[in-house]
C-alpha cells in the first residue's frame, strides 16, 4: 500500500487530494507509477497526460522519475512549483 497525495491541478484533475493504492509488483520506479496511474481512468489520464512535467516527491523530498519507489510511505504528485 502506498499513500499518494496530489496538489494543484494534478489534485483537481484526479478529483481527490489523497488516496491509498495497492500497486502491482512490477511498478518499481516513479516512471512506472505514473504509467500505471494513467490506466486507472480518464481523470488520471487527464492529470498525467504529459508525465514529463509532473514533479514527484517521495517522503516529502523531490525525486527524479528514475527513482525507485521502494520504501515510500508517501508519494506526492504535483505540477512545477509557482510559489515565492
Amino acid at each position, binding site marked *: 500500500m502506498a499513500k499518494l497525495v496530489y496538489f494543484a491541478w494534478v489534485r483537481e484533475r484526479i478529483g481527490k487530494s489523497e488516496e491509498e493504492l495497492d500497486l502491482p509488483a512490477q511498478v518499481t520506479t516513479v516512471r512506472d507509477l505514473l504509467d500505471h496511474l494513467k490506466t486507472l481512468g480518464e481523470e488520471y489520464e487527464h492529470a498525467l497526460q504529459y508525465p514529463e512535467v509532473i514533479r514527484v516527491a517521495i517522503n516529502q523530498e523531490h525525486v527524479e522519475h528514475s527513482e525507485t519507489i521502494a520504501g515510500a510511505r508517501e508519494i506526492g504528485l504535483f505540477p512545477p*512549483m509557482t510559489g515565492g
Partner: protein
Amino acid sequence: MSAPTPTIRVQAEDFDLPSELLALTKGRHDIGAVVTFSGLCRDEQGALSALELEHYPGMAEAEMTRIASLALERFSLLGLTAVHRYGKIMPGENIVLVIAAAPHRQAAFDGANFVMDFLKTSAPFWKKEHAVDGSARDWVSAKDADDQAQEKWR
C-alpha cells in the same frame, strides 16, 4: 563555527516584517548588512482579484529549511528568516518574506536572492489566480526564467 538556525514558517496569516527584522538583529553588534525581500500580490493591471496559494504541508517547511541551510552555509550568513503564506491573498498583500543578515552587504544580498530563486523552483507552493470578473481561475504556469534564475547559483 556552525551555521545559525534559520527561522522558517508557513502560515495563512500575514507576517510583520518589522517584528521579524527585530527578532533577527536585536542586540547584535556583528551584523553589518540586512537584506529583506517581500513578495507581494499584484493585481495585474486590475485583472486579478486574488491569488490562492496551495502548499504541501510538511514538505513546504522542509524544503524551505533545506534551502535556508544551503544559503546560511554558502554565504556565511549570521541569520536567515523565511516566511511563506498560503490561502487566499489579495492584491497589495504579502506572499513571502526573506531576511538575510551578514557582516557585509554582498553576502546579505546574495543570501536573500539565492533563497528566493530556490523557493520559486523548489518549495512546494502553487498559485491560482482569481480573475476580477469571476470567470477564470487559472493555475499560474511555472516560468523558464525562474529555472534560469536558479541556474546562476551553480
